[in-house]
Each structure stands twice: as structure tokens, then as C-alpha cells.
């Protein structure tokens, strides 16, 4: 028997924490095969993965006929948008790349991942074998303009601040102007020519950017002390939340004309947009209200005691904290809204899903459902995952749950 002396630690001595190191086999043993039921679970899971993946991969790479996607790529991306006007969409994308590049340099200089989105992804897209050389050049241009924006921001950080804010605020109207056109400089492109991913994105972006402020106003209205504002907000929120989105879209298409003066017509796409915005705003309001209620009363009191008025208290103290706390929920709702845009296919708009059904009606591609739906599912997934990922980065950057 050894009798070990306990080691004496002097007060100034600081020990480093013990580090755990694993070999690959050690990791496998600890995480996958540590007990007999873990081992069983691991093996069953592996078998299920194999059973699903093997036939799927075999189908994707050997049996699927992807010509349907390649031949209709333009249709999937922009619908019936006139071919000679597509440069306007590229222009809008280039402006976006420039803005993001500039914002990257000024606001998120340490966030390397923005670079991946701005440079690597467009270059990857440019290297796809089946896209037209026109698109290839434009993707390379996109990356180049993004880098140019970034370089400009690094070179003149002070001077570019104001232009950047103008760009960020003005991007949305510029985008709409570019896409729809304005006589006599840009030919008008009616909304029934907008389609595919372009329409899906426009619906989502409009829905997100307008429902967000509207939802905040409704949430504040619901907490208001003015009885009329409060009652209206509650009625609105509860009524909209009690109705499925499809119903609202149908109402906007079929009922709205009944209330409008004869001769006045509102564009189909605009009606769908309005329906989506009004729908999403009610849900947004409830999410924001949850955040508002979580702010302790002491925050209001401290702000009032300093002499801030009700608006200043809300704008500088309460809302920033409330919104920060509900970022995950809000982004979740943005993602849901993005996917819900596919419902406009039911009222006859040719968004990504609507285009899919027209493509499937082409005689030479009859029976290509699997390829087409898998392709658009992939597009939906990529954008949804990107939003979800961006939200996690935003949470880290804002220190949600830490401060």
C-alpha cells in the first residue's frame, strides 16, 4: 500500500483546467458504442440511413433525368420575365452585392462568412456546367462587385457610412423600380410576367419587410392604454390568426374586387402581397408582444425617471431589448413566411411552385415530378437554412442570453 501525501497548493498557484483528448477510436467508443444499447441504437440508425440514402443517391445520380431542370432553368428562376430585360434582375443583384460588400466592410469586418456568401457561392454557381455563359459571366461580375464594395468600404470607412445607409434604405424601392420598370427609360414589365424564384423572393421580401414594422405597431397597439387602438389591435390580430392564409389569399383575389369601385383594378401580385403582409403582421405582433412582456418593469421606470417620454422609452430602451430576445422566433416566422409564399400558386400566380406545375405540363417532360419537386425543395431548403444560420450568427453577435 502506498500512502500518498496530498499535494499542497500555494495560494498563488494557478492550475490549468484538465484537457480531454480523444483518438478517433476513443471518440467512437465514448459517443457511439459506450454501452450495449448505444451500440444497438447506432447500428439501427446506420441501417436506416443506409436504407434511405442508397436508393435515393442511386436514383439522383443514375436514373433521374435532369434535363427538365436544365431546359427550364430560366423559367424556374424568373418565370416569363422577358428575356431581353433580364439584365435588370442582374443589375438588382449587383447592387445587392455592392451593398452587402460595403456593409461587410463597415459593420462586420470580422465576419469572414459574409465573404463566403459574397464570393464563393457566386463563383460556385458560375462553375455549374449547365448554366448559360451569360449567367456565368454575371455571377463572376456579382462576386467582383461584392469584392469592390468591400474594398471601397475598407478604403474609405468614414466616407462610405452615409451612402451605405442610403443604399440600405433605398434598396427596396430601387429593386421594385428595376423589376417593374419605369417609362420611358425602362420598359414596364407587368407583374403577370414575374414568376419563379424571382416572384417567390419578391413576395417573401415584401412580406418580411412590411409585416415586421406593421407587427410591431400592432403589438404596441395591443398594449396601448387607448381603448380604441387596443380593441382594434386585438380584434385584428385575433381575426387574422383565426383564418388560414389560403383563405385570405382567396378573399384578396375574389372578394376584394367586390368592394372596389367599378373600373378600379388592383394587380393580382399586389393583392397576394397585401394578403401575405396583413397575415404575417398579426403573427409578428404576437411574437413581439411576447418580447415586450418579458422586459422587467424596472426598465420602464428607470427610463421615465430619467425624463424620457413614452416614445423614447419604447424606441431606445424597451423595443431593442424585446426584439433581441425574440430574434429566434421572428426568424422562424420569416422562414415560415418564405415557404408560405408557395400558397400563391393556388390562386394562380406562377411562383416557384406554380412554375413547377406549368413545367410539368410540358409534353416532353410529363412524369418528371420527382426531379422538379426535388429541385424546388432544394431551393426552398437552401434559403430557409441560410436564414436560420444568419439568425444564429446574429444571436451570437448580439449576445442573446449572455447579457
Amino acid at each position, binding site marked *: 500500500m502506498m500512502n500518498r501525501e496530498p499535494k499542497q497548493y500555494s495560494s498563488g498557484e494557478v492550475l490549468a483546467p484538465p484537457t480531454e483528448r480523444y483518438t478517433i477510436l476513443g471518440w467512437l467508443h465514448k459517443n457511439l458504442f459506450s454501452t450495449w444499447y448505444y451500440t444497438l441504437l447506432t447500428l439501427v440508425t446506420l441501417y436506416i440511413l443506409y436504407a434511405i440514402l442508397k436508393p435515393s443517391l442511386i436514383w439522383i445520380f443514375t436514373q433521374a433525368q435532369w434535363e427538365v431542370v436544365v431546359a427550364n432553368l430560366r423559367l424556374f428562376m424568373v418565370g416569363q420575365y422577358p428575356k431581353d430585360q433580364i439584365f435588370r434582375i442582374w443589375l438588382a443583384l449587383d447592387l445587392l452585392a455592392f451593398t452587402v460588400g460595403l456593409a461587410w466592410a463597415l459593420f462586420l469586418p470580422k465576419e469572414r462568412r459574409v465573404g463566403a456568401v459574397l464570393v464563393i457561392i457566386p463563383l460556385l454557381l458560375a462553375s455549374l456546367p449547365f448554366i448559360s455563359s451569360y449567367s456565368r459571366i454575371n455571377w463572376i461580375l456579382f462576386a467582383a462587385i461584392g469584392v469592390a464594395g468591400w474594398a471601397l468600404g475598407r478604403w474609405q470607412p468614414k466616407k462610405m457610412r452615409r451612402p451605405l445607409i442610403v443604399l440600405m434604405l433605398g434598396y427596396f424601392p430601387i429593386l421594385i423600380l428595376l423589376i417593374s420598370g419605369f417609362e420611358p427609360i425602362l420598359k414596364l414589365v407587368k407583374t403577370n410576367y414575374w414568376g419563379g424564384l424571382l416572384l417567390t423572393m419578391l413576395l417573401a421580401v415584401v412580406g418580411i419587410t412590411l409585416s415586421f414594422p406593421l407587427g410591431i405597431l400592432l403589438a404596441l397597439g395591443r398594449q396601448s392604454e387607448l381603448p380604441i387602438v387596443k380593441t382594434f389591435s386585438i380584434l385584428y390580430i385575433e381575426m387574422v390568426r383565426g383564418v388560414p392564409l389560403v383563405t385570405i389569399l382567396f378573399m384578396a383575389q375574389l372578394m376584394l374586387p367586390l368592394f372596389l369601385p367599378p373600373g378600379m383594378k388592383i394587380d393580382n401580385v399586389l393583392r397576394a402581397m397585401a394578403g401575405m403582409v396583413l397575415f404575417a403582421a398579426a403573427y409578428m405582433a404576437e411574437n413581439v408582444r411576447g418580447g415586450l412582456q418579458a422586459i422587467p418593469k*424596472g426598465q420602464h*421606470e428607470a427610463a421615465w*425617471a430619467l*425624463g424620457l417620454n413614452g416614445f423614447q422609452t419604447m424606441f431606445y*430602451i424597451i423595443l431593442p*431589448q424585446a426584439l433581441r430576445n425574440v430574434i429566434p422566433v421572428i426568424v422562424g416566422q420569416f422562414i415560415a413566411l418564405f415557404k408560405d409564399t408557395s400558397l400563391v400558386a393556388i390562386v394562380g400566380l406562377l411562383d416557384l411552385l406554380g412554375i413547377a406545375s406549368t413545367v410539368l405540363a410540358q409534353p416532353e417532360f410529363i412524369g418528371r415530378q420527382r426531379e422538379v419537386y426535388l429541385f424546388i425543395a432544394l431551393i426552398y431548403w437552401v434559403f430557409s437554412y441560410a436564414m436560420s444560420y444568419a439568425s444564429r450568427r446574429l444571436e451570437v453577435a448580439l449576445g442573446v442570453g449572455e*447579457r
Partner: protein
Amino acid sequence: MRETVAKVKTTPEQILSLSEEDRSAAIERGELPIVLAHEVHKWYGNFHVLRGINMEVYKGEVIVIFGPSGSGKSTFIRTINRLEEHQKGHIIVDGTELSRDVRNIEKIRMETGMVFQQFNLFPHLTVMQNITLAPIHVRKWPKEKAEEVAMQLLKRVGIPEQADKYPGQLSGGQQQRVAIARALAMQPKIMLFDEPTSALDPEMIKEVLDVMIELAESGMTMLVVTHEMGFARAVANRMYFFDQGQIVESGTPEEIFSDPKEDRTKLFLSQILH
């Protein structure tokens, strides 16, 4: 024999009958109180929390309010900047009567600073932003001036090196000192302290009290709800003992500590002084 229950000499009419300039001149000379509470009552539902509070505080005085929990002392100090509404009686702060008039409330809040038990710093703003927010948006100071003043105040409370940190990164004592600096940045005429050391660990109480003592010695008018009797002994001009919504006894620290008149005061003091 001195009066044990506080009575006030000044009536609300005496202040309100004067023109605004005369009021502030008289307050400045110490002829009229800067804070006057006259027969103040408040109810929470059927519960009568404040039952006829009378108090006058002159410019530069330091007032300590103490008493058992539920005695209405915090509620009273919070009526002075209208975080609580009183339902009867008059409260006149720096010549302005508190009423439902929002302009009066905003005016009084600009002249009174408040320090809370739970600090109530804004967790999403840095220390510097916490302090400069109100001067920039309420007093409309340019940012540079507000930051300069904030830095001086941070030096005064002893933590200039913490300016760019967030409140969550500071200790309780440091947070409370930031809260004091934040209130002082508005250059108030009156400072209200609502149990400023009750939420602090024992070793941090002193650093906050030192700042408050320095502030008292600089001539600030202060109303302090606290059980820190050492602080009261060192700087208070008068002390008020609250119980069940009333002022039971008032007097100088000397009078209260060595010769309390009321049994309730004696009992309470014996409990907190051990």
C-alpha cells in the same frame, strides 16, 4: 418639547401663489422647500398605503427615510417623481405641482434623479451609453458634451475604466455607481435613492455609500430610503420613521438615535441596530 409627528410649516398655496421666478428664488434662498408633500394619500385598491404624509425638504438637505417593510416609504419616494400616483393631497417639487399634467411630470422628472434598489441599468447599452442616453435625447446635448460629462461622472464614482463595458460585466457595487452617475448626468436638483444598497453583497455596500456621502457633502438635495444607519448618522439632516403609511417620528439623527420618543421607533431601531 419637539414634535414627534412631522408637521409642515409651508402650505401649498404659499408656493403656488408666487410667480415662477419668485418661487425658484425663494427655493434657492432656502425660504421655501424644494420638495413639499402636504397631506399625501394613496390607496392600492382598498389598501391605504400612504395616510397623510407631510414633509418638507429644503435645498441641500439630506433626508433619510426608514421603517419596516410595507410601511409605505418606497411608495412615498416614488410618488415624488410620479412613478406612483398619489390620489389626495399636494406634492410640489422645485415649485412645480405634480398633477395629471404630463408637462409638469416631465419637468419634474428632468429635475429629479432616481437610484433604484435593483439598479435598473439598460443591459443592451454600454455604461457610457447608459449615462449619455438621457442627456442626448432629453436635454438635447451634443454627443461630445454628454460623453465628456459622463466621463467626469465616471471618474467621480471611481470607475472610468468601465465606460465601454456592458452592465452585465460589472459587479453589483459598480452597477449601482453607474446608476448614480446616470442619474447625475441629467444634472438634477434632487436625488431620490430607493434602498440603494439593499441588493448588494456586504463588501460592496461601502463603495456605494462612499459615493453617496461624497454627493451629500457636495450639497446635493437627497431623499434616501435606507436602513444604513451609519450613513444617516454621517450626513443626514433629518430622519423620518415610517410605519403603516404614516410618519411616526422625525428628527435629527442625534435625536432619533439617542432619544427616540415613540415606542415603535425604539422597537424598530433596537431590531436593526442589534
